[in-house]
């Protein structure tokens, strides 16, 4: 097969029909351009939301849940299956995790575990002047928290170093600060459930962007929280585990529950709806791009069909002078692919331009203090897929007209003159 000759004929045909060629190519350009833009933007969004969830949610959250014993004393006596105990109440138990320091040590030697962070949760009242607000204080290992989660991103007007180093300091929820008209540098009093009152210094504000959380939640370092509750450094109410491979979360959580009699919530269970959102966004991206390319494909199909009737003389001459059906077929398929290639490359450029423009567009959201522009995920593979998609679609669109051209009978055409 003499491709230089075939491509030369294809090129000449396209050049004599510049306007139609450009229109057909533009169809592909818009299809591929919007695919690149959409897929970069959608996956950018997905990535941002994933990051947001993943970087503030532990893979496994271990805590001591207050719940009634599954086996009641009567169940140990007989096994008739007919016993029914009503109005079961849980026993008042401590919220602390039993032997937490040993457990932390054990977890940190586990090969699957990247980090196990202790937490102390305390119910408190925030007091400032006459106002009292109920809320929660989380005692955390500040440095580790910053290393493993995006805790730092949610601190406004303050630094995590201050929180780690200043005794009796607090990172106050932004909503609380607003309600109480407090600001960084002020002091706030906290009252525990037992009635002890402490005065803490506000070294910064915490803003997650979720108003309900910011109106109740504050952070201290873990020692401050333990002192607040009048407990020793053995007192730990929860352990957040980050794994090397988050897909193992569910199975590891189950074995931890059984092994230690604690409640273990894994990220997959906690964020099941999240996957659905990602899937739907991907679906939309591909549905829209596919539709646009389908339209472009029909455009190419139409234009090639027209071209074939306009070039019927050429087809007859080529066949009369010894070109085979497949030569003629290749000439017209090449034309479709050339349109796809030019349109596709322009489409990639358009997509790159649009997604760079989106990348520069300011995006102000209190939920994501570190995000200043719309998220875009520039990825080479999308561009390769886009070009492949363009070539494949135009090839398909060219196939039928090209076959028709290949089958044309030169005698019929010449007689028609």
């Amino acid at each position, binding site marked *: 097969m003499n491709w230089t*000759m075939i491509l*030369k004929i294809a090129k000449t045909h396209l050049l004599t029909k510049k306007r139609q060629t450009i229109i057909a190519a533009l169809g592909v350009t818009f299809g591929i351009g919007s695919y690149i833009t959409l897929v970069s933007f959608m996956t950018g969004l997905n990535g941002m939301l994933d990051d947001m969830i993943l970087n503030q949610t532990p893979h496994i959250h271990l805590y001591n849940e207050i719940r009634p014993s599954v086996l009641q004393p009567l169940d140990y006596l007989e096994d008739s299956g007919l016993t029914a105990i009503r109005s079961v109440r849980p026993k008042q138990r401590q919220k602390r995790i039993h032997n937490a320091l040993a457990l932390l040590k054990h977890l940190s030697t586990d090969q699957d575990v990247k980090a196990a962070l202790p937490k102390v949760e305390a119910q408190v009242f925030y007091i400032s002047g006459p106002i009292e607000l109920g809320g929660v204080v989380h005692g955390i290992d500040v440095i580790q928290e910053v290393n493993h989660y995006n805790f730092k991103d949610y601190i406004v007007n303050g630094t995590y170093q201050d929180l780690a180093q200043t005794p009796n300091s607090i990172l106050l929820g932004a909503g609380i600060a607003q309600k109480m008209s407090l600001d960084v540098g002020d002091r706030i009093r906290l009252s525990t459930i037992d009635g002890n009152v402490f005065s803490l210094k506000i070294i910064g504000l915490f803003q997650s962007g979720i108003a309900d959380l910011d109106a109740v939640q504050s952070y201290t370092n873990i020692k401050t929280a333990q002192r607040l509750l009048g407990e020793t450094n053995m007192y730990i109410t929860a352990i957040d585990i980050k794994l090397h491979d988050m897909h193992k979360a569910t199975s590891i959580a189950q074995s931890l529950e059984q092994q230690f009699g604690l409640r273990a919530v894994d990220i997959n269970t906690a964020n099941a709806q999240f996957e659905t959102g990602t899937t739907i966004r991907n679906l939309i991206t591909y549905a829209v791009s596919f539709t646009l390319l389908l339209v472009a494909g029909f455009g190419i199909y139409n234009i090639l069909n027209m071209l074939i009737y306009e070039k019927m*003389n050429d087809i007859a001459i080529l066949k*009369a002078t010894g070109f085979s*059906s497949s030569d003629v077929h290749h000439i017209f398929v090449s034309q479709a692919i050339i349109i796809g290639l030019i349109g596709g490359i322009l489409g990639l450029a358009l997509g790159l331009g649009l997604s760079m423009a989106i990348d520069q567009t300011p995006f102000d959201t209190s939920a994501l203090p570190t995000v200043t522009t719309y998220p875009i995920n520039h990825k080479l593979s999308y561009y390769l897929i886009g070009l492949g998609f363009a070539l494949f679609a135009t090839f398909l669109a060219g196939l039928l007209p090209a076959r028709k051209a290949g089958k044309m009978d030169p*005698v019929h055409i*010449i007689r028609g*003159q």
Partner: protein
Amino acid sequence: MNTSTVLRANNINKHFYTPEPFHVLKDVNLTVGKGEFTTVMGKSGCGKSTLLYILSTMDTQYNGELYIHDQLVTGKTANELAYIRNKHIGFVFQFHYLLSDFSVLENVMLPAQKLAQRSPTAIKAAALEKLAMLDIDTLAYKKAANLSGGEKQRVAIARALINDPAIIMGDEPTGNLDSHNASNVFDIFKRLSVENGLSLLIVTHDKDFATKTDRIIQMKDGRIVSN
């Protein structure tokens, strides 16, 4: 059997079935010898073009046998026939069938590029040589669409010659030209026949033209009546 036969047709019969059954060619037998300049004459509608399309292997819907260089051509695949047309047959139509978007040179080169038995430079040299032989080498880089009728027909002859075919067939190649250009084209054919020993089979209505050739085949109602 004459060993220097270029083309031989045995008992060619052809029917058209639409719009109504019609027996166009009836028991046509014909040979063209090497170097022979043969013309086919006959009233309009007697089947000359139909015969020529069969002899040029473009039409395969017929009964009978066709030999080119004593080799049976009938029944060969479409690709084999395309190769035979490319290598052994040059065709000149009544209307100036050129690829109008291409240059004269490209038009002449194309069949040789398809055959691909010579290097691109050799093909170009051969094409320019054929154009010079027909006195149109100055037009080589003009677009085919911008030529006059007589010039186009000479380009078509150059194209038919490019692969040094066994035979040139023409379906009223001068039918659409004024008398000056028509005699010019005829002179070219005559020269090719005499000087280059080329075989020609030309359909024509021009009596003067025909009488100057080696042989006249007369057709009537789908039959050859004199040979």
